[in-house]
Structures are given as C-alpha cells and as structure tokens.
C-alpha cells in the first residue's frame, strides 16, 4: 500500500489496526483454554469481530489526555489543601458526606479496577478486551484520586481515618461490598451488565453528576474536581456497557432472556445501593441544588427510559423493578436518613435533624410524602433529643439476604407497612427486603446463602477484634464491636456537640479575626 493510503486512514481503520489487528487465534492452545470463562453463562457469541468499538483511544492519546487531566486535578488539590480549603465549605455538616463517600466509594472503584482487569484478560474479542483494560486502569485512577482528595480532610476531621479497615467490616458498607462481590464472582458477561451497564450507564450519573455538582455548590473544590474528572472517564465506560449489551443481543436471540434477567437484577441491586446517595443529596448537603427525586427523574427515569425504549428493538423490556423504583424515589432518602439517625453508636459519621427551613425544602420537594410520613417522625425525634431522650437503636439490624440493606423499606403501595419477604432453601429460612430481592435469591439460592451478614456473623463469633479468643468458656460474642470496626468515639452520634463542629467553628473564627 502506498504512502497516501496509510496516511488517509480514518479513525476507525486506524484504531482497528492498533487493536484487533494485533490479535490472533492461538494455535498451541485452544482458544477456549486461553479464554475459558466466556461460555458457561450461556451467552452465545458467534463473531467477536462484530464488536463496535465505542471510543477509539489509542494509548498515546490516552496518555496525552489523561496526563493533562491528572496535572490539572493535582494542581487544584494542592492549592485547595494549601489554602485550608476545608474551611471554605458551607458548614461542617457537609464533611459527613465525605466520610460516607470515602467509606463507600473508593473501595468499590477498587473492585471495579480488579473486575475490569479480569474482563480485560478474559474477553475473547480484542475490541472488548482493550476497552475493559482501559476501564480497569481508569478505575485505579478513581479510587486513588478519591483517597487523595479526602486525605487532607482526614487530618482535621474524625471518622475517615479507618476507611480501609472498615470497608469489609462495617455493617452499612456491606450492601456495596455485596454488590461488587456479587458482580465479580459472576461470569464475565454478567459482570459487564452489572457494572458496565446497570451501574455505569444507568446509575453512576446520579452519584457523580448532581451529587458532585452539589459538592461544588457547597464549596468543596477538591471533591468537585475529582468527581467531575472521574466522570469524564465515565463517559467512556458508559459506552462500553451499552455496547456490550447491544453486542450480546445482536449475536444470538437466545441471549435475550439471559440479558433481560441480568438487567432486571442489576437495575434493582443498583437502586438499593443508591438509597444512601439519596440521603446524601437530600439531608447531608447543607446547600442543595436538586432533590434526589428530581435527580432520579432526570437521570434514571428519563435517561434510563430513553435507553430501554431504544433497546426495545432487541426485545428488551423495561426492568420489572422500574415502577417500584419510581414509587420509592419519594421515600428512600427519608427512610435511609432516619434509619442512620437511629443508630448513633454504629457509624463513623454524624447525623442530625434537619433545621426547620430544611424541612420546608423537603416538604416542597416531596409534596406527596414528606409532610405526611417523615416530618412527623423527624419532629418527634427532635423533641425527644431536646428532652434528653435521644433515640438510640442498639439492636443488631435485620438484613436482606440479597442486597444486605437493613430492613427499612415499605410495602409497595403502603408507606406505613414495612416490607418483608422470605424463601426456604434446604430447609432454612432466608429473608429479603422486597419482591425483587426475593426473585434474585430464588434464581440463585446457592449463591445468596453465602452472603456475609454481620448481624448473623457476629453471633457466631466472626466479628471480633483481631486476636480475640472465641473459645474461652465465658465468651460472649459482639461485645467489642467498636474495636472490631476501629470506630473512633469522637466520630459517633450527633453532629451537634461534636468535636468536628467545635473545631470547624473555632478554625473559621480564627480565619476571620486577627
């Protein structure tokens, strides 16, 4: 081929030469031995070359753009830290958002990094393999920049210092851990639907777009920079998830029922996981740009709706849980916040009762539910707190065997009735929080009987501080949970009266006077 032809190569041809043309079918070993994981889930792929590459970044362009992003990001972080940027956030309650974020998000990004590395090894096709590898290395970026951005806050505020220890131990972090453990232990195609599609395409917008915009609105330039910068990679990740769905559906009609079951399952699992994001948006941001409900409508109902309408041409239907998520969008953030408020001795972040004008904002944003169901509870809790009788639920929670959320969601159609479901497997009873979690359990009971539920494990002596002898005669399990969690007492309970509150006020005072 002559010079002109080589020069004229378009983006697609050039990218193809730079990726799939590098690949070959192995002959010393069978391809199914080199890529042993892509058949057992029942997904049929006839031609991996039909994969359409979404973004076409070669490594040189990747390094060029990513290094520019990183240079900017760390320059902003350094500046923010050098200028005591933590004192410029709206009010110290905001910092509790970061505590919840640090505990729940970087550990999941890490699992995404490891999971996509596995996909980047296991996918037969060169196209998806490269895209998965690129996502894997991006996910390293995400958990690392998140930790780096919060590192400076950890120096001044309580409750962030033991996130690495707590990631596998804290009861309320178990929902996210089970989500990613579930995905990574599934086969590669289910992982792609779970993380690439349901999580990245349908759900992360909620976490990173309105919530991070909210962080910016509250003066946290560090979180804003990290969040938006991560989200710029997310756009690539979303297209990968969507492409993978289309690819499976186009390859064989037999793939449809499998993919549909996974979409149903993971849309629901993701919805449960996001309940705590709702409470961050509605209750924990001192200045709010939009309610969780509004964000849900914009990014899940409208955007997800567009997506499912589009996929209808392959026979995909809207996930079964969709109507329930729409009903729940007016409830979950309130139920979550009240649930956490009631456990003041078991979280490394503070809780509080919203101020009267914050309650009015909630009334306005949730006209169908807040005044009717949640304001009375919050006002009652407030009175009790002021009367010196702060509510404190000391019992171990009951958890869903699938999503591991504490049982706190209502019966569909009846906000006053708590929802419980149960299944029998091998003569043993297992509890779930909803019809959708029950269905997930019933589809794969042999998997979900394994779920590590700390309120069960603690009774078996499996949640004790390192070095505890559980075989001594008078051993009582679960007496040392704070040590097991390495939970700093200063980080517990009410924001009002906390060390964070006092320090922040005093440091701000110092900043405004001589």
């Amino acid at each position, binding site marked *: 081929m002559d010079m002109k032809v080589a020069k004229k190569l378009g983006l697609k041809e050039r990218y193809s030469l730079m990726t799939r043309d590098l690949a070959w079918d192995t002959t010393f070993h069978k391809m199914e031995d080199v890529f042993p994981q892509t058949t057992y889930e029942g997904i049929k792929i006839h031609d991996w070359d039909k994969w359409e590459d979404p*973004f076409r970044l070669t490594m040189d362009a990747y390094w060029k753009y990513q290094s520019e992003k990183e240079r900017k990001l760390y320059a902003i972080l350094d500046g923010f830290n050098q200028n005591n940027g933590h004192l410029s956030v709206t009010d110290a309650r905001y910092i509790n958002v970061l505590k919840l974020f640090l505990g729940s998000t970087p550990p999941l990004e890490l699992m995404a990094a490891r999971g996509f590395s596995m996909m980047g090894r296991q996918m037969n096709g060169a196209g998806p393999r490269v895209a998965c590898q690129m996502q894997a290395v991006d996910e390293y970026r995400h958990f690392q920049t998140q930790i780096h951005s919060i590192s400076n806050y950890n120096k001044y505020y309580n409750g962030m210092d033991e996130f690495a220890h707590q990631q596998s131990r804290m009861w309320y972090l178990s929902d996210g851990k089970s989500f990613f453990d579930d995905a990574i232990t599934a086969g590669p195609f289910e992982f792609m639907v779970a993380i690439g599609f349901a999580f990245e395409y349908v759900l992360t917008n909620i976490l990173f777009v309105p919530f991070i915009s909210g962080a910016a609105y509250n003066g946290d330039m560090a979180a804003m920079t990290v969040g938006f910068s991560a989200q710029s990679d997310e756009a690539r990740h979303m*297209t990968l998830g969507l492409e993978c769905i289309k690819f499976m559906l186009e390859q064989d009609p037999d793939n449809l029922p499998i993919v549909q079951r996974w979409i149903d399952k993971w849309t629901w699992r993701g919805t449960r996981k996001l309940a705590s994001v709702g409470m961050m948006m509605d209750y924990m941001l001192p200045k709010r740009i939009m309610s969780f409900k509004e964000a849900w409508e914009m990014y899940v109902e409208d955007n997800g709706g*567009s997506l499912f309408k589009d996929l209808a041409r392959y026979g995909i239907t809207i996930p079964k849980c969709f109507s329930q998520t729409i009903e729940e969008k007016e409830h979950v953030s309130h139920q979550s916040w009240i649930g956490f408020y009631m456990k003041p001795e078991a979280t490394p972040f503070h809780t509080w009762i919203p101020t009267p004008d914050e309650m009015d904002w909630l009334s306005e944003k949730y006209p169908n539910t807040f005044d009717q169901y949640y304001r009375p509870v919050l006002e009652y809790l407030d009175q009790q707190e002021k009367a010196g009788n702060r509510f404190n639920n000391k019992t171990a929670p009951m958890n869903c065997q699938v999503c591991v959320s504490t049982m706190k969601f209502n019966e569909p159609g009846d906000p006053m009735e708590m929802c419980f479901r149960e299944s029998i497997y091998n003569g043993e009873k297992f509890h779930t929080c909803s019809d959708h979690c029950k269905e997930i359990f019933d589809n794969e009971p042999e998997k979900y009987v394994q779920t590590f539920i700390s309120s069960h494990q603690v009774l078996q002596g499996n949640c004790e501080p390192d070095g505890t002898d559980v075989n001594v005669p008078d051993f009582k399990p679960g007496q040392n949970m704070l040590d097991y969690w390495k939970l700093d007492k200063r980080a517990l309970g009410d924001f009002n009266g906390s060390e964070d509150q006092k320090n922040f006020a005093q440091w701000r005072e110092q900043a405004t006077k001589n």
Partner: protein
Amino acid sequence: MSNAFIAFQKNDESRCIVEAIIEDNPGAMVVDQPSMVKIDVPNRLVIKRETVEEKIGRSFDLQELQLHLITISGHLDETDDEFTLSWNS
C-alpha cells in the same frame, strides 16, 4: 422522543464547544448547574470539529472532548469530523 445529552465542566474551552453545539443543533436546550453545563437535544446531538475549530480559533481534535466531558446519553459514533450521540427510538 428521547433526548440525547452531553455535559461538560465549565471552562473556557467547553464554552466554545457548547457554542458550537448550539449552532449545529437546532432545538438544543442548555441547562446551567454549579460548575457544569448540560445540553439536551431531541434524538440526535452532533458535535462538528469544524464548528468547534471556528469557535475556539485553532485546530481541534474531537478526542480533546475527553478533557471536559462529564457525562453523555445516547449511542456514540465518533469519526475524525463528528462526534454523534443518538437514540433509535
């Protein structure tokens, strides 16, 4: 009809990109939020390299969008000259 959308971090370059989008996509709706800007277009949103170059006053590689993007919605098709998001519905 579904909206395709794209959102950018607010900065000088993305301001030019947004101007280009508005010019090339009649019916574009711009939503301003803290530190970000989101543009919705019914069904199909296209970013043309030539228009961005005109606004920004230099040559522009559409892959530079990577630097400012926050999120997208729609099927993506990327060539040297156009970056397109669309829904089939």
